[in-house]
């Protein structure tokens, strides 16, 4: 795990524009139509055209899109034709971080970061078992909800049995345009990031350790403490209640916010939808957006966004 000594303040970048569509159980739109809708509106909101961006960095799951390699047919709608294209298969906050790196490194003057999930074209019940070890765990019909509870049992030393909350599949798409800080001076600034990966299944440590690490690291890099945060927006992690999250992050429960319906499955787009929710609400001051992906929230990402 990283320590504060190793962390430098990153070069901030700005979010020049953003747009989202959905979430809804079925947007009744073609995949490329969903994506073009948000990328074109994000450009409009940034007062830019497609010629102004140098590429795209996206987060998407082939399985959630119901395709073998979904991005292969989407160059036009993501805006990456004749340009750089990068694709992340983790929560979209990881794509935000990589897009940020592209802009902060000088490789890009303006970059599209977009993400989507089209579970109306997929079979969510068929995807879930693929995430489980095939020889033993898959045969036992393990469910991520059960894994969280088993980890909680190991942590407390007592059996934990709860009825799992069932995730509802939805369609959604979201896009932001990142530019160097100072380029026009408009938009919110990204000032800190953090990420941490937990172990596969093995129940050692607190379930919330990876997301706590991601939030702490993001705040450290942004030069902030949890006491500075006006909002901690949590995406996913639908089995965890606000009071536990507040305790894990060291913030008052009143600071925690969630997606409108925490039982919606936004796929990899969850982090970007959450970031846009924060931008749209426009709180003054620093906010953290944090996501926990994987079977038991072990793939954690967080960013600090400062809306002025």
């Amino acid at each position, binding site marked *: 795990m*990283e320590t504060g000594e190793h962390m430098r303040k*990153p070069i901030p970048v700005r979010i020049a524009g953003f747009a989202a569509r959905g979430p809804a159980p079925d947007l009744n739109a073609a995949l490329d139509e969903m994506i073009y809708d948000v990328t074109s509106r994000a450009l409009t909101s940034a007062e830019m055209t497609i010629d102004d961006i140098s590429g795209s960095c996206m987060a998407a799951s082939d399985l959630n899109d119901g395709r073998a*390699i979904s991005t292969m*047919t989407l160059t036009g709608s993501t805006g990456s*034709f004749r340009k750089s294209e990068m694709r992340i*298969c983790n929560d979209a906050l990881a794509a935000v971080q990589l897009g940020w*790196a592209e802009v902060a490194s000088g490789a890009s003057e303006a970059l599209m970061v977009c993400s989507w999930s089209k579970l109306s074209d997929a079979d969510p019940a068929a995807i879930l078992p693929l*995430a489980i070890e095939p020889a033993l765990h898959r045969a036992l019909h393990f469910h991520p909800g059960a894994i969280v509870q088993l980890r909680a049992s190991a942590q407390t030393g007592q059996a934990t049995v709860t009825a799992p909350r069932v995730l509802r599949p939805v369609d959604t798409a979201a896009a932001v345009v990142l530019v160097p800080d100072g380029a026009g001076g408009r938009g919110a600034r990204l000032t800190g990031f953090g990420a941490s990966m937990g172990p*596969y299944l093995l129940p050692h440590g607190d379930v919330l350790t990876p997301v706590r690490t991601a939030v702490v690291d993001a705040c450290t890099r942004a030069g902030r403490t949890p006491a500075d945060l006006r909002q901690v927006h949590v995406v996913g992690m639908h089995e965890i209640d606000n009071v536990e999250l507040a305790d894990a992050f060291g913030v008052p429960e009143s600071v925690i916010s969630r997606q409108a319906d925490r039982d919606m499955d936004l796929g990899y787009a969850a982090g970007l939808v959450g970031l846009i929710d924060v931008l749209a609400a426009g709180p003054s001051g620093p906010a953290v957006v944090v996501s926990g992906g994987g079977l038991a929230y072990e793939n954690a990402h967080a960013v600090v966004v400062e809306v002025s």
Partner: protein
Amino acid sequence: MTTQAAVLGFGQTKLKTSRTDAGATELVFEAVSAALADADTTIDEIDAIVFASAPEVFEGVYEPDRWCVDGFGGVGKPLMRVHTGGATGGSGPLAASRLIASGMYETVLVVGLQRTSETADAQAVFTTIFDPIYEQDVQLNVISGIALVASRQMKHYGLTIDHMAWISVKNFDNALRNPFAHLHKKITEADVKASRPIASPLRLLHTCPRSDGAAAVVMTSADRAAKRSHAAYVKGLGCAADVYRIGDRIHDDESDFAIPRAQAWSAQEAYRDAGIQNPREELDVVEVYAPFANLEIAYYESLGLAPKGRGIELVETGATAMDGDIPVVPSGGCMTANPIGATGLIRFGEAALQVMGRAGDHQVDGAQLALASACGGIDQFYTTAILSSSAN
């Protein structure tokens, strides 16, 4: 002022049709252990990990990065997985370079994995990318798509089966010097021409095998690398995507679906970064991701090693052989080993070994500037990296 990235070490597994002796976690452990040893680095010195693995349908596992995390020391570290189809292994070091250049992390481990043996038929997977009503009946996949490219090279630029056979023999010969290559077999041009037809004009020995394997590269800042005994420095990077509709790629001299234009766009960006004006004169060695013999010749042109339409002259003069003036894939390349999501990372690692002077029996004497590429889709996504023996 951004930070230049550098390669400290490279490791790869033995590549085989099926590594039944090792699961995915063991494969990445094997590659990562070798890379860390080569870099004289411990896992504790790694700040973040980029995991490169192509579609989940190849592995039969959703999110293989989570399955393998204990095998590559990723627990507790920041991790992101890249997947850009066949170009995945080239996108991994590109992402790591950006993370280092931006100052976000100083030392990044890039891990590439593919167990293609878990897929009953990789080409059937490709077919399902396309529209199920209009397109899937055509059975367009990478092999049939690249066969169309070869046909156009033959029609427009004089490519013959003799040129393609020479490429196959050259690459198989080179692979005999590389202990990690999948195919170790002495072949002749007659063998190539007599091999089984796959999709005209492509025959079996014009094409790559399906391989299981993993690779890993340790990357860090140039400042840190300068304190080590060996390093390769990233001088230039490029990445470009083309449209997927092939009809949209055929309309003018630049867009003929014979010479991959997106490879040219990607290379031009990398050359600009690296200040390369004349790649044929300035590059010492090239590690292209060419899974088919005809594509390697097309890349000679899109990489600027030969003028438009004259890539075949590099074959006719032997310029790209080990003893030529611009050796191409001295490792044997993709035609002798193709663990798809890791292949681009192997090209990158091999290019790094060349400029570090550590490529063993397939070392190109005096190599100081190398190019590595990766490609994905049907001639659609490309990455290019320029690696140097010296820092900026």
